[in-house]
């Protein structure tokens, strides 16, 4: 089963259009949704959670149409962390426990306090006095404490230092040890996604450029660094993106479409994304 199934999802604003998005997040997997600022990552997440209305298309989450009445109840099984924590600033962790206990039927108070302890978060300090790192760790604690089957995270690691990011990524990895647990993680920090994701979906200017298994992506593409004259011998069909500099040509190519005589390097996800986004291939 797919944890998330998106079909032909579109949304138009005055200055932006999310165009016919199709993607599947298989159950038990972590998918990274990557794209530049304004690519449509947050819009996609809002549409998946039915927080805004789609112009066209459909979304099924954990097998349930997100426009149906049952979806509201299904939100019990979805933990969401947004780019900011958005809790009322005068509340403290003890207050939030009481609010959430009366919001989620699955609320696990013991788990919540164990997360607070694990993250060294104070129980009585008002939320307004938390640092950004503390706020995000707190939001993650809340999202995980109602025993969700699906975690959706919108830029949850942005603006955090590498140590905290690493700690948080470990938690997401732990979360998917249960085979029916899935994660959709949007970020523009590609290194984070590369570390933990099984699938990468790349959104660029409101369009899905690709949605593939990470290992397949890394297998599929190669990186060439050649002089301009040598590059002319590379089949045009194989070139997915290139960068011409004074020293030569750097290009992302389809590994199997290039003769073995050309020495190829293994690209990172960031290379693949940058070359695809640059769109200088043709």
């Amino acid at each position, binding site marked *: 089963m797919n944890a998330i199934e998106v079909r032909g999802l579109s949304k138009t604003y005055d200055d932006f259009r999310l165009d016919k998005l199709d993607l599947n997040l298989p159950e038990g997997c972590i998918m990274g949704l990557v794209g530049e600022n304004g690519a449509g990552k947050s819009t996609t997440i809002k549409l998946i959670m039915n927080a805004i209305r789609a112009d066209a298309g459909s979304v099924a989450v954990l097998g349930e149409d997100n426009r149906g009445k049952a979806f509201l109840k299904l939100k019990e099984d979805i933990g969401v962390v*947004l780019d900011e924590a958005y809790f*009322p600033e005068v509340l403290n962790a003890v207050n939030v426990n009481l609010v959430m206990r*009366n919001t989620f039927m699955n609320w696990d108070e013991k788990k919540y306090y164990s997360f607070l302890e694990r993250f060294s978060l104070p129980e009585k300090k008002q939320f307004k006095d938390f640092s950004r790192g503390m706020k995000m760790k707190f939001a993650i604690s809340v999202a995980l404490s109602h025993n969700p089957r699906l975690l959706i995270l919108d830029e949850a690691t942005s603006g955090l230092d590498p140590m905290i990011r690493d700690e948080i990524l470990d938690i997401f990895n732990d979360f998917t040890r249960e085979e029916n647990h899935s994660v959709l993680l949007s970020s523009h920090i590609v290194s984070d996604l590369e570390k933990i994701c099984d699938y990468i979906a790349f959104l660029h200017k409101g369009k899905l450029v690709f949605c593939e298994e990470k290992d397949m992506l890394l297998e599929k593409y190669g990186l060439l660094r050649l002089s301009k004259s040598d590059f002319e011998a590379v089949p045009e069909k194989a070139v997915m993106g290139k960068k011409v500099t004074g020293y030569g040509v750097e290009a992302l190519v389809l590994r199997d479409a290039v003769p073995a005589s050309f020495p190829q390097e293994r690209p990172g996800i960031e290379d693949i994304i940058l070359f695809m986004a640059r769109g200088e291939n043709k």
Partner: protein
Amino acid sequence: MKGLLIKDFYSTLRQLKYFILVIFLMTFIPGFSMLTFAIVYATMLPMTAIAYDERSKWDKLAAMMPYSSADITFSKYVMGGLMVVGVAIFACFAQAIVGIFTRTPLTGMFFAKLLLVLCFAFIIEDIELPLLIRFGAEKGRIAIVLLLVVIGVGGATLIESTSVLLFQAMDLGLLLLIALAAAAVLTALSVLLSIKLYEGKKE
């Protein structure tokens, strides 16, 4: 919805404890005018709760939780209702205590007038909440003040000119009945309108 109410009570009580204290102290002042002010002031508390929600952008998070638009909207009415009824009940005790010292026990007329003020308070909330939900706390507040001035001036002119005789002649029981019916109908309409306006924000 209980979670939403707890959140609103925590937010408002933490930030407005002195304002709320003043509201309760006002109920001890003998006579009815201060008591009316206290109840009318209590109608402003949902406005504050909405302003705090806006400041923390709580609605973004609430949209991800198992709350419907109806839950989120209706919780503000419930909060407002609990506040004004709470102040009214407290006022009964406060006035009863004051009455012991001033030798003016509570009469049936006191309770009838209190009920009338409560209906008025509910009607104020029925007007203010859709405005706040549509325009937000900042612009909504201006709209409410303008509207209350228009209603106040218009109502006073009407009463002074034509209706005063009608009100004087009207039985208090009948007046209460009309006020209760008006508050109930307006509340129902106002809740429906607010839910529709809140849904409209999802576009």
